[in-house]
């Protein structure tokens, strides 16, 4: 068997990628699979974005104008699910596929066939989930956190499809993570010791462990739901002796690490881009690694800060308040290190750098509101209001999403062999920057003023903020369509890029020609300190 694979391998080594559709269906190449992941996540990003615009259109003015409440709830739910599981997570996996083999000096991922499977599960999972919107009774309408019993006893009939889709996404994530861990631990070039690994590789190694730890928990939660719905169990049904609050504990035991799954790789990306454009080595590499590890550890002991209002004993509230506040320390270390990297560097501000700096500033603002939310007695006032909506959108949009966009611009020349159009890139940045702030900044105010989240209509005092927010959302949405245009235009007619496409870019991937060869390193590269440590 292994000989057969070996022979195959030599085959496509000689001939390059297969032609046509087959290339994409049967590919085991990390770059092709990375490309598939990235385009898939972009497609999901647009779908999720359209749902968000439906929400913002309805909330433009008080009163019900465009959609009914039951449809509105499907929009908020699917917007959240699609953005989290369909856009952000697959985009990071796509980046991991493209970059990790190149950055550790390997020819490909360790488990290429599983790699193919973990991608090709996703279109089916999301096809199934999105199809529920067209079923009788509608799709999931219980929020992306799907609290029982709203998601069990009171759910629309399509919930079973939703459960199955979540299982598939989980399987895909677990396979992807196993692959990433196997690649990082086994396929590093000689001399690439753990403490010389690029930050993106480090953050993904830790993220992959988080995923393997928590995706089964999510699978457990939805399986219990399935049993409650179809087999008369009462895990979450109080009338049968179950406990709806247990659902939340299980969900957030998955869900809190999940939010770090969506931000740790972003930390990695920014830790590459800032040194490159500051032309200065990353400040405090070792502390950066330890900070990521501490954040990952802490992420397992803070989950109930999502549940301060659920009714816990005082001691429990205090424990989760303190542990949550602690996360600010390693997060602060990262922000300080990035700023120290910029300090006395020799900076230029190409598009990836602009997105990275915006990331540092706006993510930190999301961190501040996070710290405020950690303070239990005031969290009672913020909880489930638009203040929370503003908070998590600040860490996820100018946080996770901006880092992904920055990564796309940064590594675009390496992937395609072409430079993107810098002017268009900058226009895209400024549109996105303005759009994101106009959308989400006013939501802090509507939240403080008392507007609950997930409502299709609102009292009159919230009208001004919502109108501004909606305008911002449409600016932001259109600027992402513009992003698509920039990318396609650059793929078609960009200027040829050099191997080291940026003056200050360091790392093994930049020692390869652009575009990178189909099999990255067929012979292990020599790992030089000045290259990998920047």
């Amino acid at each position: 068997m292994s000989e057969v694979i070996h022979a195959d391998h030599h085959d496509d080594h000689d001939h390059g990628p297969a032609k046509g559709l087959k290339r994409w269906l049967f590919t085991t190449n990390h770059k092709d699979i990375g490309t598939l992941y990235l385009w898939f996540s972009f497609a999901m990003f647009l779908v999720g974005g359209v749902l968000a615009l439906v929400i913002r259109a309805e909330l433009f003015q008080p009163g019900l104008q465009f959609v009914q409440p039951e449809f509105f709830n499907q929009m908020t739910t699917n917007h959240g699910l699609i953005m989290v599981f369909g856009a952000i997570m697959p985009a990071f996996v796509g980046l991991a596929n493209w970059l990790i083999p190149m950055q550790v000096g390997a020819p490909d991922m360790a488990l290429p066939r599983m790699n193919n499977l973990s991608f090709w599960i996703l279109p089916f999972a999301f096809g199934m989930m999105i199809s529920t919107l067209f079923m009788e009774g509608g799709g999931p309408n219980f929020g992306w956190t799907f609290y029982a019993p709203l998601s069990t006893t009171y759910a629309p009939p399509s919930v079973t499809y939703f459960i199955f889709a979540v299982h598939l996404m989980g399987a895909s994530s677990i396979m992807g993570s196993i692959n990433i861990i196997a690649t990082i631990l086994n396929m590093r070039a000689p001399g690439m010791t753990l403490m010389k690994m690029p930050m993106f590789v480090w953050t993904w190694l830790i993220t992959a462990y988080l995923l393997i730890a928590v995706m089964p928990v999510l699978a457990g939660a939805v399986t219990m739901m399935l049993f409650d719905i179809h087999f008369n169990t009462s895990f979450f049904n109080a009338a049968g002796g179950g406990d709806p609050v247990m659902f939340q504990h299980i969900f957030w035991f998955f869900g809190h690490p999940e939010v770090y799954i969506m931000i740790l790789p972003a930390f990695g990306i920014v830790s590459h881009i800032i040194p490159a454009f500051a032309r200065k080595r990353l400040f405090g590499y070792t502390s950066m690694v330890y900070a990521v590890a501490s954040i990952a550890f802490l992420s397992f002991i803070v989950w109930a800060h999502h549940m301060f209002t659920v009714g816990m004993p005082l001691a429990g509230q205090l424990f989760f308040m303190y542990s949550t506040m602690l996360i600010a320390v390693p997060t602060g270390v990262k922000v300080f290190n990035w700023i120290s990297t910029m300090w006395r560097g020799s900076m230029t501000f190409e598009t990836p750098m602009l997105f990275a700096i915006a990331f540092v500033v706006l993510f930190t603002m999301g961190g501040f509101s996070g710290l405020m939310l950690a303070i239990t007695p005031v969290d009672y006032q913020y909880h489930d209001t638009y203040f929370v909506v503003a908070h998590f959108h600040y860490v996820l949009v100018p946080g996770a999403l901006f880092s992904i966009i920055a990564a796309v611009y940064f590594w675009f020349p390496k992937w395609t062999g072409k430079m993107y159009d810098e002017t268009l890139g900058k226009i895209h940045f400024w549109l996105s920057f303005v759009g994101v702030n106009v959308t989400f900044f006013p939501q802090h105010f509507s939240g403080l003023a008392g507007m609950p989240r997930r409502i299709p209509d609102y009292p009159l005092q919230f009208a001004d903020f919502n109108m501004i927010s909606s305008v911002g959302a449409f600016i932001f949405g259109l600027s992402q369509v513009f992003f698509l245009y920039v990318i396609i235009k650059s793929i078609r007619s960009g200027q040829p890029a050099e191997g080291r496409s940026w003056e200050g870019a360091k790392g093994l991937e930049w020692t390869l020609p652009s575009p990178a060869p189909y099999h990255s390193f067929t012979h292990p590269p020599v790992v030089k300190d000045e290259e990998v440590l920047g």
Partner: protein
Amino acid sequence: MREIEQMKHQFMRTLVGMTVLLLTGLAAADELNLRVGVTDISRQVYDLHMIIFLICVAIGVVVFGVLFWSVFNHRKSRGVEPATFHDSTKLELAWTIVPTIILIVMAIPATQVLIAMYDTGGEDMSIEVRGYQWKWQYKYLDDDYNNTLSFFSVMSTPREEIYNQSLKGENYLLQVDEHLRIPTNRKVRFLITAEDVIHAWWVPDFGIKRDAVPGMLNELWTIVEEPGIYRGQCTELCGKDHGFMPIVVEVMPEAEFDAWYSSKVSLDMARQETIGDALTHEELMAQGESVYGTYCASCHLANGEGVVPVFPAIAGSAIAQGPKGEHLDLVINGVAGSAMQAFGRQLDPAQLASVVHYQRNAFGNDVGDMTQPQDVINISNGQ
């Protein structure tokens, strides 16, 4: 060089100016900030909120100040050569320890306020708050937790306002048919729970919020000094009409409250006496329409069409046109494991009879029989 110095000054001035503007702006405009509220707890919460917020602003000014300073000055276009430092144990220690100290400074008042909030017990009266899809029920309890008075509180904003067919009133979406009333200066304990899904009961001006979870009793308390009407909303997604189940609490001077309470209890008793009396078709239809509008229309819709298949239509329904006993039984006992509640525990026999009569004779249903309160009483007594 002069130019750079000038730019630096300009930059710092703008930064400071903007911060001051932002802060005064925030302090001046109420609607941009958390409310101070009307209870001791809500004021403590507000102060805590301001402390944490100002600390965050201060940290932000320093951190972003350094960042933007660097962005302005350490540019390649200025001919700056990159420095080569990349590590400093002292700095790393400093920015681990200093934030930890700041966090401890924040945690102390936070712990104090939280402990104050958990000071339950010693209450003067207790009220059970029960969330339903999409209304609240309030039960006044005596010392032995017997129910002495109870009623539902349902949003009273007309559909026409929601659907933009008429002008929206001042308290759009924040008005109910019956306020929860409590006296001033008495410690009121709320026992919070839910009948179907999870809801959350929040009165921002009191600084209190708690989830209403089926099968669980949560505790909250408040003491309000100022009479007034205070409004809030359900804050846990609870289905279709989550946005339409407001909370309105009317705080009354103690004497006024006591008078209201005893008159309410005696009115209730008087109604019990005549509850079984037979009604005419017209009376049944009139009362039925109003009960239907308040209690049934959120799911089955005002025109009886429902939201198929989740909420079945009443128009043309086999049950609403079938035997009276089965129809009554379904409405009184609900359908276990579905959103159809057991209305026998929410409505009195006259209301139940009239809504069932109405369903059988409206929306094109034309059964033509009479449903009387006595039918309901018979079924409830197991006959």
